[in-house]
């Protein structure tokens, strides 16, 4: 694929006219996808796709296009030439862009990682073996993902990573399940089997009769996976300069009203809002140096500092309250006030005196981030989990987060 990328960049360069320059993003994947339900295959297949994105620039005027390529150099050269003609026509009818910023200092890079990938048969063997006698539902994606960047100034960046990501749930009954994942760059069927056995070992606690608690405030422990759902909401405009300047950030009260998070949260800086993610476009609009953020100004590899609570002591520290393994479907109740709502899902437990009593039926929480990660944050765990995004909208996602668990003195449940 690297040779094809170079051929594509050469083809674009060869079709430039006058003072034109370009920004080129190349993305390709050759993925195996297998979906399972009831410990059997639901759908399996392959997706092979090459996508090219082009920004054709002349002075301060530019236009952008993306298109699929075939891998056949002659066919692709024809598509590229046609697309460049379309972009020239569009650019001619577009006013100058005051916020266009082009990197003028080329910096090349190259990375290739990945070892043994599982074949479809190996995936099915491993998953159906793990699901034997159990109710397994989930999804495995594997194979290489390629990305490249090129510009007219000779910059070349290339990254290829072959990886697998197995994301599945063992169901106990009804909506009670243990959800887990196993991802990496080198497939080892025995390691997968061990991960599956560890997850299955947690099923027993879900077989007890579930309980329901009344709406109200309860002490709560959020696993790193649950906390990641909250971080996902904060990432929705929370850390970007544009969101700050347009007053749409959930941290509006930190910026304007003096609110702060708990000083344990070094994600901000000892609880205070510090730096924004600044894309080149925001940099040009607001006159702040860019720090390499993408256009959406959302963190792609969020990293939150650990605390001091040993994860093994989380139940004991919780005492009596709610142990939340997973949260689900979060959204804002009042963004200006920093208020969020969402549901518990999969494995949530009622805990008394540090012991799991029973699975808890799903509950809705509705609380402010300034309480969750502020006044009510008692501790963060000393261990952190690396959470790899299994998402595949538009292509396989390679984002991740590394987070601790969070112990809260109170979380407000409403339904």
């Amino acid at each position, binding site marked *: 694929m690297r040779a094809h990328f170079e051929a594509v960049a050469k083809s674009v360069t060869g079709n430039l006219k006058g003072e034109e320059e370009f920004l080129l993003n190349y993305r390709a994947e050759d993925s195996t996808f*297998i*979906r399972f*339900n009831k410990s*059997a*295959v*639901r*759908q*399996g*297949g*392959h*997706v*092979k*796709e090459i996508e090219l994105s082009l920004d054709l620039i002349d002075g301060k005027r530019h*236009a*952008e*296009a*993306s*298109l*699929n390529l*075939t*891998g*056949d150099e002659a*066919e692709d050269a024809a598509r590229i030439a046609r697309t460049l003609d379309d972009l020239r026509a*569009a650019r001619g*009818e*577009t*006013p100058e*862009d005051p916020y266009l910023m082009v990197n003028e200092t080329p910096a090349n890079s190259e990375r290739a990682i990945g070892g043994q990938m599982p074949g*479809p*048969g190996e995936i*099915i063997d491993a998953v159906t073996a793990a699901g034997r006698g159990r109710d397994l*539902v*989930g999804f495995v*994606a594997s194979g290489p993902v390629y990305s490249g960047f090129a510009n007219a100034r000779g910059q070349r960046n290339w990254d290829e990573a072959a990886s697998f990501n197995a*994301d*599945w*749930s063992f*169901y106990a009954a009804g909506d009670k*399940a243990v*959800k887990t994942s196993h991802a990496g760059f080198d497939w080892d069927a025995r390691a997968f089997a061990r991960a599956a056995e560890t997850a299955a070992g947690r099923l027993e606690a879900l077989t007890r009769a579930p309980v329901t608690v009344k709406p109200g405030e309860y002490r709560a422990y959020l696993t790193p996976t649950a906390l990641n759902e909250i971080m996902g909401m904060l990432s929705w405009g929370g850390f970007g300069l544009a969101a700050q300047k347009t*007053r*749409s950030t959930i941290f*509006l009260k930190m910026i*304007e009203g003096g609110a702060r998070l708990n000083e344990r949260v070094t994600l901000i800086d000892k609880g205070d809002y510090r730096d924004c993610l600044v894309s080149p476009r925001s940099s040009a609009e607001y006159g702040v140096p860019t720090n390499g953020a993408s256009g959406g100004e959302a963190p792609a590899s969020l990293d939150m500092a650990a605390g001091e609570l040993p994860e093994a002591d989380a139940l004991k520290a919780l005492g009596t309250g709610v142990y939340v393994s997973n949260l*689900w*479907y*979060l*959204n*804002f*109740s*009042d*963004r*200006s*006030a920093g*208020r969020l709502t969402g*549901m518990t899902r999969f494995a949530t437990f009622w805990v008394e005196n540090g012991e799991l009593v029973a699975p808890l039926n799903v509950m*809705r929480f509705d609380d402010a981030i300034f309480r969750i990660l502020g006044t009510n944050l008692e501790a963060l765990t000393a261990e952190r989990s690396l959470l790899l995004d299994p998402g*595949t*909208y538009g292509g396989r996602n390679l984002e991740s987060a590394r987070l601790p668990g969070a112990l809260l003195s109170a979380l407000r449940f409403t*339904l």
Partner: protein
Amino acid sequence: MAVERDVPQPRRSTESLGGMVTVIHKGALGYAATSDLTASGLTEAVSRAVSAAETAETRMIPGFPGPAALTADIHYEGPETRPWADVKLGEKMGYLCDASQALKRDERMVDWGAGFWAIDKEQVYLDAAGGRISQRAHYLMPTLWAAASAQGETQRRSWADAGMRAGGAEVLDQLGFFSAPAQVGDEAIQLLEAPNCPEGEMDLILGPGQMVLQIHESIGHPLELDRILGDERNYAGTSFVTPDMFGTFRYGSDLLNITFDPSMGEEIASYPADDIGTRATREYLIKGGMLERPLGGATSQARANLPGVANERACSWNRPAIDRMANINLEPGEGTLDDLVGRVERGVYMETNRSWSIDDSRNKFQFGCEYGRVIKDGKLGQVVRNPNYRGVSSAFWRSLKGVGGQETFLVSGTPFCGKGEPNQAVKVGHATPACLFGNVSVFGGA
């Protein structure tokens, strides 16, 4: 294309071109998608799909059928009176610049903008029995937004109720795009100055734009048969609906009538057949409040031994077909919005969704809207901000006590319905009138 804070953004276009080969072989299914449509690329895809089926042989879920062979030759052309491609780029940009300037009503406006998202879609389905279905459709989604901020409070108002609609430039006139910006800007300012929505149990009228979301989340998703069969339990979730409920379960009051309607041309999920070649016809999902049939395509119907609809769909060439919503509509009743308001002694009117959250069984929901107005003694009163409400799906639909007529009916749709592993975002249409619900838990912000 978009204009943000009076600055035209670079025009972006996307061409997605590829093919999906699905093979039924040795009682199993395999698929292979490729962006390489050369002869060698397609040959490779067929080989990989056959191999995928052979690998899954004897290990697929029970009850798996092959799709029914389609021998008909069908061509579908969606509506487009005034082709979007015929309107010059500069003219479109002019519309957006005018809208942007009209949106900014005073200095408290911190963000505003306007945009157009137009899609041309061409799809050909072929099967081994000689069937051929070709479809061509055009979609347009105009957007407007304005956000006003002062003293630590930001209120955003958008023109989002209509969502995406099938058609060309005529959609702008159908929806009143050119007269909307000033109202959107004014309402952002009104919301900034408004008190919070009151809290308590009271009557609730949802405008059709919010009804779209309510139908989508608490009727559409729970009726998807693949969810009921468990396929989505690891991702999008399951359903509180079980197979035994069809034909016996009271889902809502007797005013509730829900149809699957692939024939309403201006809705964005209209088609003659789904993506496995099943002919699509209008069917009642809920009639007189009683649950009649699920949203399940031929594969799920055979697995569950239940009737269904033609809704096995893929978002694009690079994803396999699964059960999806298409056009899911709430049939209109009679009367105007004023008629509904006139029946309310104490309540709130809400419109335009801004927040949505529901549990994985599609039961406990909490939704928020951009714009609310207090209703008192049968009249619309003060504007209120941060209007929210929560409830439980079937209990909520049983509290339906008024369904507006054609005067309140809106054809809408969203291109962002997410589901499936691998993930897929598809276009779904919803058409609905305004509706009145009793004794709903309503609350405001902060």
